[in-house]
């Protein structure tokens, strides 16, 4: 390492290499592309959140008196599409992954920098199609696009929305492809597989799903679009098409997709828990194999979304037992994080608070997922608010918590600035409280029998719905805070030290923010991964 960099904020870094709009829009620097993604997905998140606010506002009263049912259906559909395809799937991989993978493996960039930029543009184009669907009146099929409603009956703007999802799919595929090649081919000398941070492992596993799963949903969505436009008869029951086949093809991707959303989060949590416990992750190899196991097993369980769809009972049984298997590696991860904290030196910095929140909420979400995978329970709670609660626990309580943990952890690396400690801890607390208030009542609602995608509901469900709506307001405030103080910090925050957390890992060996080519000199790795010990300060020469 050159001496000059360890003193702090470098005058020459990737942010200062040109400040024109063009220098951003034509950049091939993975760090800048990560920042571009961060901006775009934030917009989509706020938009999706706005629709969530609409949903909760409507559901505060049972009569369905705020908006027309058509409008409500468009709200939850746009909410689901925006949140899943345009926020959560790209959230961690495309922002933090893009920014950190080359840094953590000691590379100058990803393997295909121009493809990386192209992926962002594809993402934006896909987003434009979705916005087109939105401004022209929205879609009302639910994010799942079930046929034959989506093909023959909906009179909303399915076509642009379907194309939007199709196009974004390729952004996701190409990002995954880029990461796999990067991780295989661009590692610094000495950096063998079992010296890789778990963040890298989980992105590797995620990328596999992106490359092998996404194309299937892409072609399926295209078929839906063609069936609408050219009257091809592929899922249309009147020519013998089977709507359940659509569901198979859809969930073949969309179940693994939930692991696209959570695995990178698990990677972040592993980094954060290790750093803030100042300890090597307990059971490192088990953790590495667990993400691979989740990614692979995740492809065998999609039928658990279809237990009551008239799928064969035998198929359902097989999917159910495989669902149980995929829970095991997740259990291994949860227990290992907990064990890492044992005997650690645990600090209560903001990222760690989010990480602790993640562990608890993901566990609840995951265990209720196991309940859903149990056929005897799913028959009652399928398509009720129990499912809604489950997936918000894993996606909002899990994945978004992890995303926020990651943003707070690597913010000094990305921006080179500090953020206000008090506000950031307060936000973590508000998010945690608001989240539980919003979504815990939904478990109860679900078992009572309140179906999802209901614009109006019988009166006996109102009390719990009001609680949920109240919680959503708190949660909204909790999310707004980081948006505000991080923006403030980016422009006006105090410059921070190169390695404010005392973390190990190649990304902390370079300046914060890093120079355009990441390292003045490509490091050679000799030490172990997560080597936290007082004696050896630097294991990277």
């Amino acid at each position, binding site marked *: 390492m050159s001496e000059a960099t360890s003193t702090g904020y470098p005058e020459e870094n990737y942010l200062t290499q040109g400040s024109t709009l063009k220098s951003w829009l034509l950049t091939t620097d993975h760090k800048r592309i990560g920042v571009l993604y961060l901006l775009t997905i934030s917009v989509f998140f706020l938009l999706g959140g706005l629709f969530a606010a609409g949903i909760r506002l409507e559901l505060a009263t049972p009569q369905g008196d705020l908006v027309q049912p058509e409008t409500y259906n468009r709200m939850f559909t746009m909410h689901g599409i925006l949140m899943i395809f345009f926020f959560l799937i790209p959230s961690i991989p495309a922002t933090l992954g893009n920014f950190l993978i080359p840094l953590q493996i000691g590379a100058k960039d990803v393997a295909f920098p121009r493809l990386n930029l192209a992926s962002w543009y594809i993402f934006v184009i896909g987003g434009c199609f979705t916005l087109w669907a939105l401004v022209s009146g929205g879609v009302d099929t639910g994010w799942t696009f079930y046929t034959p409603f989506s093909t023959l009956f909906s009179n909303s703007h399915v076509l642009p929305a379907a194309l939007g999802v199709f196009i974004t799919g390729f952004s996701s595929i190409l990002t995954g492809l880029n990461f796999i090649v990067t991780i295989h081919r661009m590692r610094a000398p000495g950096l063998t597989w079992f010296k890789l941070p778990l963040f890298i492992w989980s992105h590797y596993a995620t990328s596999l799903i992106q490359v092998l799963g996404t194309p299937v949903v892409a072609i399926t969505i295209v078929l839906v679009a063609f069936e609408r436009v050219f009257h091809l008869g592929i899922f249309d*029951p009147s020519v013998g098409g089977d709507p359940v086949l659509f569901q198979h093809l859809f969930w073949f991707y969309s179940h693994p997709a939930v692991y696209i959303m959570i695995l990178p989060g698990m990677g972040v949590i592993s980094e954060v828990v290790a750093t803030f416990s100042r300890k090597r992750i307990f059971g490192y190899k088990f953790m590495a194999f667990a993400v691979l196991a989740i990614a692979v097993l995740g492809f065998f369980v999609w039928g658990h979304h279809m237990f009551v769809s008239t799928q064969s009972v035998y*198929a359902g049984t097989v999917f159910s037992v495989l669902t149980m298997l995929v829970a095991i590696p997740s259990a291994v991860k949860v227990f290992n994080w907990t064990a890492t904290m044992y005997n650690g030196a645990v600090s209560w910095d903001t990222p760690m608070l989010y990480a602790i929140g993640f562990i608890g909420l993901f566990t609840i979400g995951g265990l209720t997922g196991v309940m859903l995978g149990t056929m005897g329970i799913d028959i009652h709670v399928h398509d009720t608010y129990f499912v809604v609660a489950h997936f918000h626990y894993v996606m909002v309580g899990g994945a978004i918590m992890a995303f926020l943990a990651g943003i707070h952890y690597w913010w000094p690396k990305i921006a080179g600035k500090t953020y206000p400690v008090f506000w950031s801890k307060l936000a973590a607390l508000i998010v945690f409280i608001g989240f539980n208030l919003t979504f815990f009542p939904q478990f109860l609602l679900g078992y009572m029998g309140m179906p999802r995608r209901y614009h109006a509901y019988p009166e006996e469900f109102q009390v719990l719905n009001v609680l949920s709506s109240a919680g959503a307001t708190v949660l909204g405030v909790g999310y707004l805070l980081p948006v505000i103080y991080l923006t403030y910090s980016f422009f006006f925050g105090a410059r921070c030290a190169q390695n404010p957390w005392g973390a190990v890992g190649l990304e902390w060996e370079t300046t914060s923010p890093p120079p355009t080519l990441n390292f003045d000199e490509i490091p050679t790795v000799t030490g172990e991964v997560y080597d936290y010990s007082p004696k050896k300060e630097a294991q990277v020469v």
Partner: protein
Amino acid sequence: MSVHVSPTSTYVKVFLTLILLTATTVWVAFYDFGILNNVIALGIAFAKATVVVLFFMHVKWSSPLIKLIAGAGVVWLVILILFTLGDYLTRTIHYTAPPI
């Protein structure tokens, strides 16, 4: 630099094999072998595809990693087909279009 360069003759042989297999598959299509019809047609297609992958696409000389990726594509497709098929083959309520 370790690129394997195959001689032209290999490629020509591969080409002739493929044409031969194509002729065979067309020819046998007109005979009824019962349930073996599909097996034969797909078997020959697989044979042709394998030849293309191994020789034209050089997988025979590629690294294990490339072999793995190529294999993964196929295996994942098999997962998709097999599990979906599993549902259809074990349904007890049969697929009937009721008159409405």
